[in-house]
Each structure stands twice: as structure tokens, then as C-alpha cells.
């Protein structure tokens, strides 16, 4: 539908298009110098009133002299667009732009006066860091792209914008380094996003689930982060950053398993400490998955595994416990999961209360009542801490989930069950793909050169090439600067 030329018709069309929209402002003005009526249309709630008053209305009324068409109207807005399509007017108004119609003109002027409610850039809440930047992504994609651009003032950083969702019309921006990212990987991601046909994508997490390789895997195949520095670090490895408008976390694809255990702090601390922390995380990963099942296996099948003094301690601490080890363990693990979930959703002051009540009830009362053993409490606590050490929340949750099937197999088959569970896990991880690239890289397939940045972290100057996991087309990252 074309934009009608007479303002009366425009007004009628507006009436037809926006029926029940109290925040719609239709402002008809008479511009004396122009000797014409103009009509300004915007959504009060999404537009910046200051900008409209100072940059649109004021110049329009006092500085326009003898403009004859739309192009000559004076407004102090840098980004202005012309359109003669009504559908574009509609979209623009919903994006917070204001539209200027001039009587007798077929074209309308779209002015960038966006000013919707948004919060200030703040410290990332979920992924805090000691040495990393204290700026986190917010809900406006433009700002988020700006945060990334600040790190990479480089023309190779490309932004590809797509619109997702029939109603939501969410802006999804793909950021990548053109000379590093493999074009096929980029095309795969772009195709998958284009295939999405949904009402709206409210969050990056939703987008991730719509396009991930294996939705039946317990493991996340893409990384969600709210840290610009982490996003940039991944961009430099040839990965693609997907910024979704209205969502404070960005998605990074393709991803490898081991990258979920790395934090930005690893690169800003010295390599020995970073290596130690990474080994600690690897250990924590295994503890979080296997410790409760090992306890169950040892108590129910392989009492020979425990040294004499430990077996006496365990036996003594279990002497009052009426439950078999598997029930004892599941009871405690569920209790701790409930505590965690309760603490997460509650406002901070009440959340603390939950922690105290839960801690006292589980730590003290349950043991004194003889429901669970001391050793079990220690096992559950270490397991919980182990799962919290994993820096990525998605991976941490996956690990917590895998623990339960592991506990069940170990209660049925002991250590043999655990071994089979581990094998299935390894096979699954080796088979998993992220955007068609191997998820297990650099362990499956084995790429020894990339082991420098896995469970250990070599000094930065030794990591001269980009890891192969995202198939970068430009491998060289830096030259040899030190012996």
C-alpha cells in the first residue's frame, strides 16, 4: 500500500491501522514557511520526546524556510530514511521511529528518534570476573554491538542483520571476522536462523534451542555469555557471535566442549595459575558427575575399595541411617537442588534465609535425626561445590543433571555401571557437533597443537595460531615474540 498524498487520507489510514493505541501521538502542525500542513506520527512509549522536541519540531517550525519537498525539510537527525510504503511506516513506528508526512507528498520521512526504556550498562551478574571488564551486555542490540566494536575497531568485523519471528520481528545480528570465520560455518548458522518460523524469539536461549545440532543431548552446544570480552575472545578464534535484540546474553557458535570450562580470567592471569585453575575445573567436572555415584558404588558393591579406616568411619556414620545408599544420596541431592532453585528465584534477602534454613536442616538436623550419614553430607557438599566451579551455568546444569543417571547405574551395577556411564558420555561427546564442527575438538578429533589451550593453558606467546575447532580460515594469530 502506498502512502496517500493528502494528510486527511493519511489520518484516515492511521485511524484504520492503529485503533486502540493510546500511546500513539498524531501531531498535525502548520509550518508557516512551508505553507503546508505536516503530520508527525510516533509512539509515545518508544520514542525519545526530547529528541523529537529539539531535533524535529524546533527546526521544523523555526528553521525551515522554503522547502518544497520532503528532502528539504530541516531536521536535526542524522539517520533519516524516505519511504512511500505504508508497511514500512508501520514497522518504523513500532521500532520507536517517528514519521513525518507532508501534505501533498507521496513520501514520508522516517526519523530515528528511538528512546525506549533501557537500563544502564552494568557489571555482568552471572559471569563475574576478577580481572575482566566490568561491562556486561544489556537488552539493546545496538549497544551490545557497540560494546563488541569497542574491542575490535576493524573493518573485518562484519555485522549481518536478520529479522526473526513473525510477530516479534526480533533483530538478530551475526558478528564475525570476515577474514577468519569459515564462510560455510557462517552460512550454516545463517541458514538455520533464516529457517526459524516462530511468533517471536523472546530470548537468546530460545533462539539457541531452535537451531542447535542435537536437541536430545544433555550438553549445551552453543555458549551464551553476557560478557563482551568473552564474545570478542571467541570472535578472534573464528567463531560467530549472535546478538539478539532484547536479550542481555549473546550466543557464540560453533562451540567446543572444553571452551565451556574456560573463562576470560584464564587469559588475564599468569599461565601457571590459569593452568592450575583449569585442572581444578576439570577435577570438579569429574567430581560433580561421579562422586555421589562412587560413594554409592563403594557402599553397595565394592567395600574393598575403601581403606580400612575410611570403611570404619563410613560404617559408623551410617549405623543409624535407615535408607539404602541410593535413596540417601538421591534424597540429599534433590534437597540441594531444591535449595539452589529456591535460592535462585527468591529476592536476595529471603534467598539468604533459604540458605541458612537449608544449611542447618541438611547439615545438622538430618544427620542428627539419623536420616542421612555425615559422609553423605560431605559428599553432597563437595559435589555441589564441584558443580558450581564450572564457569558456564548451562554446562553446570547439564553436569548436575547427568549425576542422577550416574547414581542410578552405580546403584544397579557398581563401578562397572559407572565405567559404562563414562564410556557412553565420552562416546556421546565425541559424536556431538556444533554447527557441523566437532564438539569434542581438540580431543576428538585429536589436534595436539590445540591442547595448549585446554585443560592446561600454555603461556600466551606460545599460542601462535587460532584453535582449529571453529575451522578458521586464517590460522596465524601472532608472531613469535619470545623465546
Amino acid at each position: 500500500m502506498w502512502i496517500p498524498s493528502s494528510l486527511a487520507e493519511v489520518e484516515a489510514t492511521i485511524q484504520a491501522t492503529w485503533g486502540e493505541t493510546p500511546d500513539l501521538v498524531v501531531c498535525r502542525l502548520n509550518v508557516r514557511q512551508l505553507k503546508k500542513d505536516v503530520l508527525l506520527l510516533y509512539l509515545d512509549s518508544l520514542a525519545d520526546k526530547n529528541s523529537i522536541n529539539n531535533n524535529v519540531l524546533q527546526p521544523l517550525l523555526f528553521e525551515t524556510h522554503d522547502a518544497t519537498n520532503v528532502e528539504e525539510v530541516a531536521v536535526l537527525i542524522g539517520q533519516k530514511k524516505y519511504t512511500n510504503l505504508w508497511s514500512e511506516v508501520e514497522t518504523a513506528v513500532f521500532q520507536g521511529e517517528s514519521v513525518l508526512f507532508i501534505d501533498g507528498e507521496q513520501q514520508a520521512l522516517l526519523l530515528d528518534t528511538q528512546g525506549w526504556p533501557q537500563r544502564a550498562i552494568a557489571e555482568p551478574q552471572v559471569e563475574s570476573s576478577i580481572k575482566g571488564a566490568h561491562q556486561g551486555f544489556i537488552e539493546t542490540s545496538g549497544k551490545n554491538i557497540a560494546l563488541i566494536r569497542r574491542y575490535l575497531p576493524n573493518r573485518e568485523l562484519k555485522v549481518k542483520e536478520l529479522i526473526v519471528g513473525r510477530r516479534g520481528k526480533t533483530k538478530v545480528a551475526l558478528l564475525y571476522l570476515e577474514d577468519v570465520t569459515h564462510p560455510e560455518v557462517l552460512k550454516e548458522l545463517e541458514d538455520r536462523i533464516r529457517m526459524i518460523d516462530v511468533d517471536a524469539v523472546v530470548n537468546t536461549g530460545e533462539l539457541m534451542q531452535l537451531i542447535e545440532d542435537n536437541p536430545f543431548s544433555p550438553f549445551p552446544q552453543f555458549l551464551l555469555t553476557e560478557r563482551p570480552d568473552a564474545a570478542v575472545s571467541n570472535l578472534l578464534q573464528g567463531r560467530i557471535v549472535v546478538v539478539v535484540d532484547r536479550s542481555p546474553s549473546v550466543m557464540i557458535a560453533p562451540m567446543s566442549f572444553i571452551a565451556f570450562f574456560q573463562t576470560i580470567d584464564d587469559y588475564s592471569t599468569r599461565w601457571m595459575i590459569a593452568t592450575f585453575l583449569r585442572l581444578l575445573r576439570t577435577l570438579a567436572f569429574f567430581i560433580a558427575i561421579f562422586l555421589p555415584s562412587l560413594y554409592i558404588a563403594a557402599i553397595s558393591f565394592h567395600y574393598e575399595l575403601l581403606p580400612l579406616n575410611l570403611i570404619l568411619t563410613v560404617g559408623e556414620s551410617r549405623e543409624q541411617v535407615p535408607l539404602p545408599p541410593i535413596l540417601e544420596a538421591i534424597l540429599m541431592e534433590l534437597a540441594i537442588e531444591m535449595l539452589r532453585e529456591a535460592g535462585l528465584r527468591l529476592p536476595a534477602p529471603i534467598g539468604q534465609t533459604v540458605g541458612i534454613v537449608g544449611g542447618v536442616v541438611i547439615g545438622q538436623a538430618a544427620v542428627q535425626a539419623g536420616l542421612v550419614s555425615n559422609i553423605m553430607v560431605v559428599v553432597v557438599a563437595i559435589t555441589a561445590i564441584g558443580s558450581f566451579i564450572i564457569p558456564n551455568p548451562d554446562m553446570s546444569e547439564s553436569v548436575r543433571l547427568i549425576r542422577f543417571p550416574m547414581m542410578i547405574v552405580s546403584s544397579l551395577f557398581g563401578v562397572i555401571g559407572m565405567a559404562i556411564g563414562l564410556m557412553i558420555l565420552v562416546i556421546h561427546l565425541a559424536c556431538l557437533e556444533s554447527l557441523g564442527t566437532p564438539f569434542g575438538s581438540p580431543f576428538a578429533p585429536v589436534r595436539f597443537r590445540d591442547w595448549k589451550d585446554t585443560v592446561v593453558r600454555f603461556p600466551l606467546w606460545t599460542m601462535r595460531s587460532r584453535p582449529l575447532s571453529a575451522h578458521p580460515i586464517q590460522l596465524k594469530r601472532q608472531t613469535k615474540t619470545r623465546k
Partner: protein
Amino acid sequence: MKAAALLLCVALFLSGCGMNTKLDSLTMTLTLGLDTDGGKLLSYSSSPVFNKDAKEHTEVIEVNASSLREGRYKIDLFASGRAVGGKIQNVVIGKAFAKKKEIPSLLDVLYRDPKNSTTALLIVYDGPVKELMESKQKDKPRLAVAIKDLIMTTAVDKQTVKANLLDFHRTLFDKGCTPFASEMTRKNGKMMANGTALFDNKGKYITSLSPKETPFLQLLRKEIKPAIPFTLRTAALTGKKENISVSIEHGKVRYETRYRNGRFQFHVQIDAGVIITEKIADIDISKKQKQLEKMIAHEIKTKTTALVKTFQHHHVDPVGFGLYARAYEYDHWKKVENDWGKAFAAADVSVSVKAKVISYGVIH
């Protein structure tokens, strides 16, 4: 893939892995006792009890059986849980019993059934085993832990040896040496480690070494680390009944083996570096260093020579002279390997010792 996973799950149930051994329902024999009473074989089991209602935390069961496995079935009749031997820490054998019977055939089940522990200590008890098994010592932990701790720590100080079932089996099986085990007894109601029990090559108890002789057995076996402490009288040097305590910190023990005139000849050369740990005797050690060293060397020589004489007298070879004979004089060894104890008894063994004082301690 899915079919394979399913098959795997089913196969797991088939293999018998489903049979579990819950800690709560086990009667874990931690100390196994063997003794005789007028020709009957008595088997004892001491196991921990995990129950808050039980007054005693150790359960001792005595049964009369012809073998250990049969004994276990009988123990099962008494025990509140399933009797298992996976955590046996000590196997205590009455001395009277060990004298009469060759024990290896009785211990067979401990080696043959893989669920049994073969790292249990083998201990010969001088006295009725019943008395040890039923003893309650208020100042000691559970019996099994107390016995094990006693032997392990005493063995570090070389006053007894540490021999588990595997060691016993190996030394029994090897024709070049004979087995030994630690020995303990009770004195004034308290248990104590009491040197070393020596067995012949059939596994029958022969004789014992006292806690004072055991360090020199360990020296001959080259088990010097961390140190071999002993105390000697200094009468030869000062003319008075006084003491000096030394400890062999490092040393070299070399064996020279020959075959001459129809018998084996062994020469043992010991180079010992000793430190003085205590000096009661009034000796000016800075002046009389040479004499002191000589005296220490003499003491070591006397003790080791006497020890070897004892071995030869009883036709046992816990040191393993036979290993050297086999290594250096294989042809001659081959002829006597089945009766090495006798051949060893006829052998000439000479010992020469060089001692060097490497430290006089912190004060002079």
C-alpha cells in the same frame, strides 16, 4: 546404536553384576584367627559392628571347622551379616598350631578366592589365639586396627618384620629362601610385637627371632631404610656396663658367592654408616672414634654371624642366600635346590663389617 545400548543394559543384568554387597549387611572379618585345641581346628573372626544399639563395636566368632572356607560357612551361621573376607587385615596363627601343621594348605582359600584380601599381615601369636581375639583393650582402637598399627610401626623400627600373605607365598614358593612372619604375644594383658617367626620351606613354624635379633635380619636382607637402630654395651671399651645407642642410616651389603670343596661359600661384606643417637657411656668420642667404629663393627659382625648360625642350625634361609647361590653357582644350586636348607646349613658364611660414624649427634 540404540539396539546395542539396549543389549548392553540387558547383558549387565545377566552377568551377575546385580548382586550387591551392601556395607550395612556385611560382617567383614578384619582379623582372622587360626588355632588348635586338642587336634581341632579353631577359626576365629573379629569383625566391626555398625549399630548404635550394640554395646560392643567388635563381634568375635569362634567356630570349629576343618578348613577356613568351611569355617566361614559356620561363621555365617552366627554372624548378623554376610561373612566376607575382602578386608582381612591380619591373619593370626597360634604358635602351637603353626608348629604342628604346615599352614600354606590351610591358607589356600585366601589366595584362590579373588574376593579375599591377600595384603593381610601374617602374624604368629605366641599363646592361645582366643585370648588375643577376645581381648578388650580400652586404650586401643578396634582389634584389627590395633594389631595392624602395632606391626606396621614396629616394622619401621625393624624390631619385627612386615610380611603379608603375598610375601609369605612368594618366599614359600621361591626355593632360594624360606618364609617368615611377624610374631606377637601378650604381656601384662597388653599385646606386643615380639620379633620374627621363621618357617621352613614347607611352611611349618621352626623358630623365632627376638626383637633384638630382628634388626640384623633386616640388615642382611638389605632392608635398611629408614634406619636400623640398636643399642650396644660398651664394656669392651670402658670396662663398665654402659650403653651406647646407634642407628645404621645407610649401608651396603654385598654378597660374594662361591662353590668350593663341595659346599657353598658366602662372604657378606657390610659397609655401614652409623649415627650415634645416645651415649650413656663415658667415652671421648672425638679421640676414640676408631675404637668406637671398630666396636660397632664388631657388634654387627657378632650379631649377624650368630644369626646366620641360627639359620643354619634350623635349616632355614629367610635372608635368601639361596638366591645368590642360584644366581652365581647355578649348576651346583640346581643339584640341591630341593633341599636348600640342608645345603645352606653346610655352607661357610663369613661376615666382615666396616662401620663408619657419620654423625655424633647435635651435642658432643
